[in-house]
C-alpha cells in the first residue's frame, strides 16, 4: 500500500475463541504493583 503501512495483522478478536487458558502472568505481579497493564504481557498458551 502506498499511503498506509500496517504494522501488525494479528486480529485480537480471533483470540476470543482460542484464548482463556489462564496460564499468563498476573499483570500486577510483574513489576508494577500499582497499575494494571496487560499490553506488554506474553501469551503462555501451549
Amino acid at each position, binding site marked *: *500500500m*502506498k*499511503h*498506509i*503501512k*500496517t*504494522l*501488525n*495483522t*494479528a*486480529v*485480537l*478478536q480471533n*483470540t*476470543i475463541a*482460542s*484464548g*482463556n*487458558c*489462564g*496460564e*499468563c*502472568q*498476573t*499483570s*500486577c*505481579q*510483574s*513489576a*508494577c*504493583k*500499582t*497499575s*494494571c*497493564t*496487560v*499490553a*506488554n*504481557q*506474553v*501469551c*503462555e*498458551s501451549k
Partner: protein
Amino acid sequence: MIHKYKMNNYNIVLDVNSGSIHSVDDITYEILNSYKDVENETIITTLSKKYKKEEIEETIKEIEELESQGLLYSKDKGEEALDKIDRRNPVVKAICLHVAHDCNLKCMYCFAEEGEYGGKRELMTSETARKALDFLIKNSGKRVNLEVDFFGGEPLMNFDVVKDTVEYGKELMKKHNKNFRFTFTTNGVLLNDEVIKYANENMSNLVLSIDGRREVNDKVRKTINGKGSYDLIVPKFKKIAELRNQENYQVRGTFTRKNLDFSKDVLHLADLGFKQVSVEPVVSGEDTDYYLRMEDVPKINEEYEKLAIEMIKRKKEGREFNFFHFLIDLTGGVCMTKRIVGCGAGTEYLSVLPNGDLAPCHQFAGEHTFKMGSIYKGITKKEIRKEFESCNVYSKIECKKCWNKFYCSGGCSANAYQNNGNIKSIYEVGCELQKKRSECAIMLKVDEMVNI
C-alpha cells in the same frame, strides 16, 4: 472504533477491536477525520482543494481494503467473550505473601503505612506461609504456572521465612506438577551478598524500589533515622542487576506531585546503568499533598512523550533501556479474555496477610471491609469475590467506549476504590496517563518497525 493521533512526526491509527496498528500519511489521516461520517464524494470534494482527486480515491481504496480485512473499523466482539468469562469459575493462580508487615524505611507515600497497613507490626510465620502455598495449590485447578510474590512492608525482614517457603514450594512443585515463580519486592536495605546470591538462584523476577535522582529518592524514601536511602541501596541494586545480566528485574520508582518532572528520574536510573526501569504514578487518596490531580495530567503526559523520544535517541546511540510502561506486544500478546478481565484481583490473584487472612490484592490489605476469608477457612465472603469477578471493561460505561480498554483492562480496582469508593468505576487521572502511555508505547513500536 479507531483511535488516531500524531506523535513524533508519525500519524498513527489504532483499530481498537482488532488491535491493528497503521502508520499513515497526511492524506489518509485527513480522510479518516470524516470517513465514517460522510459519503466518499463529499470527502473528495472537500479535500480536492488540497490533494489530487486520483490520490484521494486511491487512498480511500486502501482504507476500504483494510476495512474488508477487518483491520480498520472492525467490530467489537469483546462482549462475545463475556459468556466465556462468566462460565470460567476462575482459579487462584497468584498470591502476594505479606511476609512482613514491618519496614525498615519510612517512605512518605507508602500505601502500606510503613508496613503496618493500619494494623500492627507483624511477621508471617513459616507455618502460615506453608499453609498459604497449600491453599494456592488446592485452589489452582489445572493451572501449571503459579506465582508467589514475597511482599511487605519489607519482605527481607523475614528472610528465613522466605527461604523456608521457597524450599517448601519446591517440594510441592514436584508433588503436584506445578511451576512456582517466586519473586520479591524489596527496598534494598537488607540486601547483601548472601541474599543477592539466593535471590539470583531462586527468584524469577525482582522488584527493586528506588525513586530516581538522589534528591527525589531521599526526600521520600528515608531510613528510620531520617536519612536518605539512595547511597545505601544504589550499589547493591547495580550489583544485582549486573549479576542477573540486566534481565528479570525492575528498578521501580514512584512519582508524585512533588516530582512531576519524573522523566529525569527515569533517565537517571538509566544513566546508572539499569536496563529495566519502571517509574509509576503514586496511588493515593485526595487527602495528601502529593496525590496527582487532573491539572497535573498535561505536564505528566508531556514528560511521557519527552521520555519516549529520548528513548529513541538513546537506542540509536546504543544506550537502549526498557521502560516498563512503554513495553507493548503488538504481535500477539495476551488474549481478549485477559484484556477484558484485567489483573484478576480478588479472583485469580489474592493477598495473604501475616495472620493468614485473605485480601483481594495488596492494595486492599489495610481495608478491613475487604477481608475475604483466610487460608484456613478459604473464601468465606463470596460476595466480595463475586464483585471483583464481575468487574471488567464491559461493566464500566466509560471503559466500554474507550479506545484504550484492551491495553489497560479497565485500570486498577484499588485506584478506582480509593477515588470513588467503588471498584466498578474509573480513576480519571489514571485513565489519562494510561492512554498517553499506550500512545507512547505504540509510537515506539511504529518507529522501530518503520525504520527496519
